[in-house]
C-alpha cells in the first residue's frame, strides 16, 4: 500500500477530487435483450463531502455503486465505457489484486439488507475482525480487541459481551451498525452507503444517519449516500445527483435543488410525496411508471411522463448542462423550469 494509508481524510495532493466518475456506461446482457442500466454518468466526490444519489428503483443508482466497488456481476453486467478515477487512478484499469487492496481499505460499502449481507455462521466479532486479519494480517486476539473498539465506536451497547454474538441475535438497527463497523474498520477515504436505512424504522434511521455523520466528522471521509428518500437527502447531503433511467438528470447543492428544481422529474418527485410537516396538500403523482431500461424511450427518457414535454423532447436527448453556477440539469427547458419556482 502507498502513503494514502497514513491519511484517513484521504485528501489527495493538489486538491483534485477524491473520486471522479467520468462518463460511465454499464449494461447487462440478458436473454431478453441488453439492459442499459447506467448511461454515461459523471460525478465527483471530495473528502468530507456527502453526495446523495437519488432515484427510484431501477434507475441505475446501485449499479453505479457496485461498479465503483468492483463487485458488478460480470456477466451479465459489463462496463462499456468511462472511467472511475480514485485519486487520479482509473479503478477499471487496475488488476484484481490492486482493486482488492483499494476495496475495503480505501473505499467501502454498507448495504441495505444487513441480515443477508452478514454471514449467519460467524460471530459479528469474527466478521469485523476479518477486515484486520485479511488486510493487515492482525492476529486473532488483536483483531477481536479491535472489533470491540469498533463496536463501541458505532455505539453498540455492551460491545465486550456481544462481540461473540451472531447476527440473528441483533436487532435490525444493531446489525446495520455492525455493517458500518466493518465498513469503517480500515478508515476508508470513501464510504458508499447503499440505502443504509431503507429497511429500518424511522427512529432507528435517525440514529444511523446521525452515526454516519458523526463518523464523517471524525474521519473526514467522503460519503456517497444512495437512496430514494427525499427527506433523508434533504437532511444530510451537501450535494445531490438525481438519477432517472440510468442517467444523472439534475445535480446541485441539496437545498438549492429542493427549493427550486430545474428538471421536471425532480419537480414531479417533490410534488408526489406526502410531507410530515404539511397537512392536506394534494399529491400530484408523476403519471405512468419508470421506463424499461431494455427499451428506453427516444430522446429524453422522461418525456412520456413529463407534463412539460413538447414535440422536440422525443427527438433529442438533453445533455446535462449548467443552468446556473453549481447547478446542472438534463432538460431542454431547464431555465424555464428553474424560473417557475
Amino acid at each position: 500500500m502507498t502513503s494514502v494509508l497514513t491519511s484517513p481524510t484521504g485528501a489527495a495532493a493538489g486538491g483534485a477530487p477524491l473520486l471522479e466518475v467520468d462518463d460511465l456506461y454499464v449494461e447487462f446482457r440478458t436473454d431478453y435483450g441488453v439492459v442499459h442500466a447506467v448511461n454515461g454518468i459523471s460525478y465527483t466526490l471530495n473528502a468530507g463531502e456527502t453526495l446523495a444519489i437519488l432515484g427510484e428503483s431501477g434507475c441505475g443508482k446501485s449499479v453505479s455503486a457496485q461498479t465503483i466497488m468492483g463487485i458488478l456481476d460480470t456477466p451479465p453486467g459489463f462496463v462499456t465505457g468511462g472511467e472511475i478515477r480514485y485519486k487520479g487512478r482509473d479503478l477499471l484499469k487496475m488488476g484484481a489484486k490492486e482493486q482488492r487492496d483499494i476495496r475495503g481499505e480505501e473505499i467501502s460499502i454498507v448495504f441495505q439488507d444487513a441480515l443477508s449481507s452478514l454471514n449467519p455462521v460467524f460471530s459479528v466479532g469474527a466478521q469485523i475482525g476479518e477486515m484486520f486479519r485479511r488486510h493487515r494480517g492482525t492476529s486473532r486476539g488483536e483483531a477481536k480487541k479491535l472489533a470491540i473498539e469498533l463496536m463501541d465506536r458505532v455505539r453498540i451497547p455492551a460491545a465486550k459481551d456481544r462481540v461473540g454474538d451472531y447476527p440473528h441475535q441483533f436487532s435490525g438497527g444493531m446489525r446495520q451498525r455492525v455493517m458500518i463497523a466493518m465498513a469503517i474498520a480500515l478508515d476508508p477515504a470513501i464510504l458508499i452507503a447503499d440505502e443504509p436505512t431503507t429497511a429500518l424504522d424511522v427512529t432507528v434511521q435517525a440514529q444511523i444517519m446521525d452515526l454516519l455523520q458523526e463518523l464523517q466528522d471524525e474521519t473526514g471521509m467522503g460519503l456517497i449516500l444512495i437512496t430514494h428518500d427525499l427527506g433523508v437527502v434533504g437532511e444530510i447531503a451537501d450535494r445531490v445527483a438525481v438519477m432517472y433511467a440510468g442517467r444523472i438528470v439534475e445535480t446541485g447543492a441539496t437545498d438549492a435543488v429542493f427549493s427550486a428544481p430545474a428538471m421536471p422529474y425532480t419537480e414531479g418527485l417533490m410534488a408526489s410525496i406526502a410531507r410530515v410537516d404539511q397537512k392536506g396538500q394534494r399529491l400530484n403523482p408523476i403519471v405512468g411508471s419508470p421506463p424499461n431500461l431494455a427499451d428506453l424511450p427516444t430522446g429524453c427518457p422522461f418525456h412520456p411522463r413529463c407534463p412539460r414535454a413538447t414535440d422536440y423532447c422525443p427527438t433529442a436527448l438533453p445533455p446535462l448542462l449548467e443552468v446556473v453556477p453549481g447547478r446542472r440539469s438534463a432538460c431542454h427547458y431547464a431555465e424555464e423550469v428553474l424560473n417557475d419556482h
Partner: protein
Amino acid sequence: MTTDTTPGAAPTVRHEADPSGVPLLRVEGLVKHFPITQGIVFKKTVGQVRAVDGVNFELRSGETLGLVGESGCGKSTVSKLLMQLEKPTAGKVYYKGEDVTHLSGKDLRRLRRNIQIIFQDPYSSLNPRMTVGDIVGEPWEIHPDVVPKGQRSQRVRELLERVGLNPDFVNRYPHQFSGGQRQRIGIARALALQPEIIVCDEPVSALDVSVQAQVVNLLEELKRDFGLAYIFIAHDLSVVRHISDRVAVMYLGSIVEIGTEDEIYEQSAHPYTQALLSAVPVLDPVARSQKTRIMLTGDVPSPANPPSGCRFRTRCWKAQDICATDPPELVDRGQGHPVACHFAEAVTIVGGDTHVPEPTTDLSEPVETRASAKRRTGS
C-alpha cells in the same frame, strides 16, 4: 345504502353514515398473545409474545383511521384481528354494535363481505396462476348474490377501469404488471364485494416514490365515491398524515396516543409520538430548521418481556419512579385527546401550514439532539 345505476360506475353502492351514531367498528380491550413453545413432541409454553395488549378504538363511517408505529408494535396483528384472520386472546370487536369476535361459518362470511383488506406486498398477495379477471372476480364465488353470473365479466371490466387499469387486461397474469398496477388489482379485488370498511395494511410502502402518490390518490377518490371507511396501517408518518382523519400511535402492543390528525401531528403529547415525529426526515430546509430533534436511545424492548408500568419508560427522557409501577391509562389529560403518559404535555415537533411553530419546551436535558451530539464530540 343507495344504489347508483349509472353504467360504468361499479361498484354501484355508496355507503351512507348510520344516523343512529353507532360506530361502524369498535374494538374493546383487544389482546393477542402468541405462545412461545419449546420442545418438538411435547410442546411446552415457556412464554408469551404480547403482540397486542389492550387496544381500544372506534371507526366511524366514512372515516380514515391511521394506525402508525414501528415494526413489531402490533399494528399488523390488529389488522388480522379485525379481519378475523386471528382469534384474539381477549377483547371484543363490534361491527355496527354487534359482537363479531367469535363468528364462524356463514356469519363470518357475511361479515367479511363488509370488511376487506389490501395487503402490503402486491407481489405475494396475488395468485400468479390466476388471470387478473379471475382474481378480481373470485370473491363472487363465495358471495354469488353480489353480482349475478351473467354480469360478472362486465363488472370485472368496470372495476378494473375504476382503479385505473385498462379493462382489456382481464386475461393477463400478475407478473405482466408493475408494482403499482398490481396494487390496483388488489384494490379492485377488495372493492368487488362493495365493502364498507377496507383495512389497508401498508398499501404503498412497497411502491416507488412516484407511484405511491398515484395509489394514495386512488384510495382517496374511492373513499369519496363509495363512502368507504379505512383503517390505514403504515409506518410512514407522512402518508398517514396525508390520508387520515384520525391517527392512533402504537408502541409495543398498545395505543399510546389517539386523536385527530391535527392533534397528533401538531400537538402531540406523548413522548413517543414526539420522538417518532422528530425522526422523520424533512425535505424543506425552512421546516427542518424549525423541527425539534429528539433522538431516542436503544431499541424497542422485546414484546415477550415488556417493561413494567409504562412500556416506553426504558427509552423515555421524562420517566420517573411512577412510570415503572403504574401503567398510564389512555385518557385525556388536558390536551384534548387521549394520551397514555403520566407526564403528557402537548408540543409542536413539526409545523403545519395552519400553525406557527412555537418555541419548544424543555426537551433539552437528557435528550440527545444532533446539535448536542455535535457539541459533545467537539465537531
